[in-house]
């Protein structure tokens, strides 16, 4: 198995005819953890949703390849099958389907017919990963995200990631709404996955998650583009000094997108 590679070139994304991502370049390889930081409204979540194929976002130009294949040509389920995973900021609730049934369907979707995961093996894996995330086993039998608190939903996203073992995971504001203990648990889950065959893109506007998951590269997003990249020290400086110094450096008055002068 070759190490994963996600390559984004000059990507432009619109929602309802309004351009949000305005020419973005980024490359992530296996073994790397990247963090995209930036204030609200700069296009971070749009990037993650567009990469997964969210129906509301339209890619108007640019190129994205995942392990050499054209990601933008793939249906949402094909992107997942290829090894892409998005931990969503606001996961949907689906009534009537238990978490366990859903996860088993998802795992089996990646396997050949006749090679479905055995129930015993599935339960064993699930129990192990739920323990790791300090989740009550009762969550397995609750309807998918229904009535889950914000923090429970986030843990559930990480549980899905650990069960599905993607090649590249995008974590969209996985830290929002989490208390410090839950944050540590989530970080533990991500660190557990860390290996040369796994790449990760963490989207956040706080540095605090990065205290527990040390990124290899940190990018700052403003006005729908990556405006600055660096190592973990960049995140620390942002935490200490905020974003104003970057705006000053680059002559940006309003960092958000769509606020055409």
């Amino acid at each position, binding site marked *: 198995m070759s190490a994963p590679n996600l390559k984004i070139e000059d990507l432009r994304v619109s929602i309802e005819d309004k351009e949000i991502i305005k020419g973005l370049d980024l490359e992530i390889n296996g073994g790397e953890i990247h963090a995209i930081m930036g204030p609200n409204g700069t296009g971070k979540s749009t990037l993650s949703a567009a990469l*997964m*194929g*969210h*129906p509301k976002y339209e890619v108007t130009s640019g190129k994205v390849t995942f392990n050499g294949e054209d990601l933008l040509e793939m*249906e*949402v*389920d094909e*992107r*997942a*099958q290829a090894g892409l*995973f*998005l931990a*969503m900021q606001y*996961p*949907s609730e*689906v*009534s*009537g*389907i238990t978490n366990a*049934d*859903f996860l088993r*369907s*998802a795992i089996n*979707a*990646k396997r050949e017919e006749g090679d479905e995961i055995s129930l015993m093996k599935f339960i064993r894996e699930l129990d192990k990963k739920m323990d790791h995330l300090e989740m009550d086993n009762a969550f397995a039998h609750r*309807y*998918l995200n229904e009535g889950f608190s914000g923090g429970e939903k986030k843990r559930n996203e990480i549980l*899905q990631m650990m069960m*599905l073992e993607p090649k590249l995971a995008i974590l969209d504001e996985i830290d929002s709404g989490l208390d410090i203990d839950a944050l540590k648990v989530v970080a533990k889950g991500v660190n557990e996955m860390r290996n040369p065959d796994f790449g990760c893109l963490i989207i956040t506007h706080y540095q605090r998650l990065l205290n527990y998951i040390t990124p290899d590269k940190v990018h700052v997003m403003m006005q729908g583009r990556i405006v600055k990249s660096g190592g973990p020290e960049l995140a620390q400086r942002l935490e200490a000094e905020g974003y104003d110094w970057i705006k000053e450096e680059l002559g940006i008055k309003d960092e958000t997108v769509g606020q055409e002068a």
Partner: protein
Amino acid sequence: MSVDTSLRFDKDYVTGFSSSRQEPAWLQELRLQALELAQELPMPKPDKTKIDKWNFTEFKHEATGTPVAFNELPEDVKALIGSEEEAKNVLVIHNGTPVYFALEESVKDQGVIYTDLLTAAKEHEDLVKKYFMKAVAVDENRLPALHAALFVNGAFLYVPKNVELSAPIQAVYYQDDEAAIFNHVIVAAEDNSSVTYVENYLSTNDATDSVANIVSEVYAGSGAKVVYGAVDNLAKGMTTYVNRRGRAEKDARIEWALGQFNDGNTVSDNTTHLIGDGSFTDTKTVTIGRGDQKQNFVAQIFNHGKHSEGYILTHGVMKDSASSIFNGITKIEHGATKSHGEQTERVLMLSEKARGDANPILLIDEDDVTAGHAASVGRIDPLQMFYLMSRGISKAEAERLIIHGFLAPVVSQMPLESVKNRLVEVIERKVR
């Protein structure tokens, strides 16, 4: 309206049909009166569905089946009733003919009568006379009248006072002939008795135009409990009128669990009269519409008795260009103080062309009551689809999960494990 009053079936035909089956005189008389009414009465007018072009009157009437041993029953039928050891109390009617029957001695010994309706009409004339076309009146409209004139057979289940049956009584009505289904079911539970009856309707003829005209009458005496489970699975060629009616006396309880999965146009009326004080009914329905079928479902409860309670829960899924109207009606009559009515109708549409309407109606003629309703009609949530697919689940499988999830709140509450399993199977087949 003169065009469609010309029934193919006249007095001579009905007389001959009844005589050939050696029916008692009163029944033949009732058939002939019903035939006259069928020529005069108007069609029913289901709210918001136009049925004047639907064929309820042109059909082949008679067909035959041949009695068989258990292991000669078709696999489809065996799948419904379980093994011979499990299917201890079962009636199978094939093309209008009783072809298989089993009833435990221990059940018979308690005075329970379970047999095909024609046999009952001869052997238990007084009882059949007491119940036949009494909950559903012959003169309600043309279709019950036509039903009474031409019914072919059905089931008669009588449970004497204080007898509580634990094992379910089953019936399968199976049609592979192009002939119509004119089936009549009577469940009469005397005071303080308890019984569960489960029926399956199955037909295989997709191609030919045919008609199903089905009436069920359920009588629950004081303190009696009847659980009535039904899974309808009639093929596309069948235009169906199905009327299931209940009457609950003092402190009686009728629980309906209906899986309505016909593939053809269907008018369904499920009405319960809560006659006695403290009576209770609960009617749960799941349905899936597909192809270009049109359906109209009425779930209706009349609270006559004080402290009576009625609950309606309906979940329907519409696929392709299927359309359905769901009318839930709670009617609390004057004098039914302290009674309670509640209903929920939910419809999920899977395609742009599918249509579903949910009309919850509360008609209340008494002040001192409580009632509530909820209804929703919606399309599949694209964000839910995105979420499921983002985990590698295909579009078809994601839809399947959402449909199961949507129907689960009703299916999971169905009173019998066997009905539940059967529903899951049929749903599985229909959503694929």
